[in-house]
């Protein structure tokens, strides 16, 4: 009689422990799930702010690159001026070319897209059409 009572108590004690563990598990899951939802909701504005900052940084980097490009262009123009002076320092630079060759040279250059809109090329095209 007493043994069966102890067995009954032990059985229900184990059941209660199991239910308690299950209950704690459910509470932990609900907490974790809500935390994940809150974390995801907070992530969106944070992500937007991070992207905005990245875009601003990319923009300023692009401005710097364009600024450096202008500096490089100025350096190139300076080199061209120096080279021009060197070429002009030689007496042979004044040697005249055959006019037919010079005309063919200019017309050849004007055939390229990058030169087609030069005023000289436009002038040559107009003289052709007359």
């Amino acid at each position, binding site marked *: 009689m007493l043994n069966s009572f102890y067995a009954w108590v032990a059985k229900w004690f184990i059941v209660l422990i199991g239910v308690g563990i299950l209950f704690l598990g459910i509470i932990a899951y609900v907490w*974790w799930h809500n*935390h*994940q939802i809150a*974390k995801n909701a907070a*992530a969106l504005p*944070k*992500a937007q702010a*991070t*992207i905005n*900052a*990245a*875009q601003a*940084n*990319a923009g300023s*980097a*692009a401005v710097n*690159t*364009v600024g*450096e*490009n202008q500096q*490089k*262009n100025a350096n*190139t*123009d300076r*080199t*061209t001026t120096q*080279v*021009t002076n060197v*070429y*002009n320092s*030689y007496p*042979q*630079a*004044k*040697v*005249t*070319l055959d*006019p037919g060759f*010079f005309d063919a*040279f*200019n017309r050849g*250059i*004007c055939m*390229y897209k*990058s*030169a087609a*809109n*030069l005023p*000289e*090329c436009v002038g040559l095209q107009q003289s052709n059409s007359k």
Partner: protein
Amino acid sequence: VESAPLPKANTVGELAIFGAAQTGQLDKANDRTADTITIYTNCEALLKNAAEQFAPKPWYDFWD
């Protein structure tokens, strides 16, 4: 990038100067290409870095 202006006079010097100026224009065009690639690469790297910052954390990372 537009071509250098055509030679102003019918002389050897002007032709040579045109060649130099045209090479300068080529440099500018090449610089522009390099700069475009730089801008694009910077933009991509910054956005990639931003994306990594808000990538989902693992499920066991409770406290963040």
